[in-house]
């Protein structure tokens, strides 16, 4: 077995394992979201389907699969059907550079962070395709707003991540995690708290989660860019959203919370625990805050997050130069 063959097999195993992880995670995450929503509302959440409602996601998946995927008459068939695929396909790739454990990296790449940031831009393209290809005014509006939001919030995200790159000197996520230590005071959040805050807010906005979910708000735009999708088309957007949440929270734990580093347990469990804490915080945000109006959303980005992230970056550079 030559080196290349081993690498190929390793890649294939990594992709399959990542796909299984994504599937299992999304199934659990959808259920968790509804349960968290229920308990925040002081009600039980799903309870009947399976013990304590655990099979609810399976029931939802079967429902989505059994619906007829309709396309509106005037919609462009290529664009319309390409959009959900374009939304979901890159998400698998995004999970490959992330170090889930000391040796559990799908595809160790020196520019891992850059790969993630670049491919998450494909989501914007998917939104455009969905909105334009739907032949629906509200879908178009929703897509336009979504694109403005995604593109705008990527800038402070990039600058926050850049500040961490300055301090760690590498774009390789595995090395960034290896530089941090097992205890909270060793983590990057201690040296870059503002960057963590900005990154997290931008991450919530990038994944179109409440309070930034105006583009897909049910009461505002009848589901925005995915109005015209039913059955598995919508299912793919839904899956893409949850997978993006997982990606963004994984990157956050790798960058700021020490990734797989932790005292007693093997690394993978620490990574999972930290990722799920961040996901729970995202869900907490969803069921607490009212939705931001679109101009408020953009104001927050251009008038607050961007200057703050620039200041953070300059401050980091200054401190690094002087000390």
């Amino acid at each position, binding site marked *: 077995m030559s080196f290349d063959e081993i690498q190929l097999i390793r890649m294939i195993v990594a992709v399959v394992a990542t796909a299984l992880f994504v599937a299992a995670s999304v199934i659990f995450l959808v259920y968790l979201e509804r349960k968290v929503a229920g*308990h*925040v509302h*002081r*009600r*039980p959440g799903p*309870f009947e389907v399976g013990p304590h409602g655990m099979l609810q996601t399976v029931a939802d998946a079967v429902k989505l699969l059994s619906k007829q995927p309709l396309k509106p008459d005037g919609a462009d068939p290529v664009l319309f059907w390409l959009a959900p695929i374009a939304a979901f396909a890159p998400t698998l790739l995004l999970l490959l550079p992330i170090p889930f454990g000391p040796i559990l990296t799908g595809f160790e790449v020196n520019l891992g962070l850059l790969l993630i940031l670049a491919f998450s831009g494909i989501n914007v393209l998917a939104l455009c395709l969905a909105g334009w290809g739907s032949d629906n005014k509200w879908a178009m509006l929703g897509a336009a707003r979504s694109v403005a939001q995604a593109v705008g919030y990527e800038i402070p995200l990039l600058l926050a991540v850049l500040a961490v790159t300055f301090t760690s000197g590498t774009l390789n996520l595995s090395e960034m995690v290896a530089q941090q230590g097992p205890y909270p005071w060793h983590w990057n959040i201690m040296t870059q708290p503002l960057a963590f805050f900005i990154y997290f807010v931008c991450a919530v906005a990038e994944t179109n989660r409440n309070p930034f979910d105006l583009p897909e708000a049910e009461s505002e735009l009848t589901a925005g860019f995915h109005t015209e999708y039913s059955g598995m088309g919508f299912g793919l957007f839904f899956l893409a959203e949850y997978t993006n949440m997982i990606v963004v929270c994984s990157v956050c734990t790798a960058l700021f919370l020490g990734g797989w580093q932790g005292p007693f347990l093997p690394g993978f469990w620490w990574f999972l625990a930290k990722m799920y804490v961040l996901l729970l915080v995202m869900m*907490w*945000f969803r069921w*607490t*805050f009212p939705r931001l109006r679109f101009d408020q959303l953009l104001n927050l980005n251009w008038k607050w997050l961007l200057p703050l992230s620039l200041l953070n970056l300059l401050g980091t550079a200054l401190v690094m130069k002087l000390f």
Partner: protein
Amino acid sequence: MGEDVLGLWSLVKGLKITGAFFFSKQVTVHYPRAGVDNLATFRGPIELVPNPEDPAGPLCIACMTCAATCPTGAILVVKKNALKPVDAAPDQNKTARKAPKGPAKFTYDYTLCCQCGLCAENCPKGAIRFSGNPYCASINKKDFEFDLLEKFRMNMD
């Protein structure tokens, strides 16, 4: 600037409130696993009031007001027929043929009932009341076609 900082603090306060809600006791009652404890105002299906002078029969005089008032047509009342005269003298016919006032049939479709109470309100005799029974559950639609005279027939046996 100041009010933006205050705004940020209000977000934290909001998170504290929902966080506290997450850990507090649920308001929902898991019916039917748990019983409900505030049934005083629950109406449920209607039932016929027994006649105080003759508890074997209902107070209902089959005037059809309830059936006419019911907005969904859930009630069906059929009057009792007059008895046929049996070898009576001409002057006795009138009393013998006086129609008994009562329902021969009183069926009620609970799937149509909206529990508005118009039947009970408008009944001239006050012969209809709500049973307050919250535990009528079934997976079969036929189980909700109640025969409200059944309890009187059963008592007569």
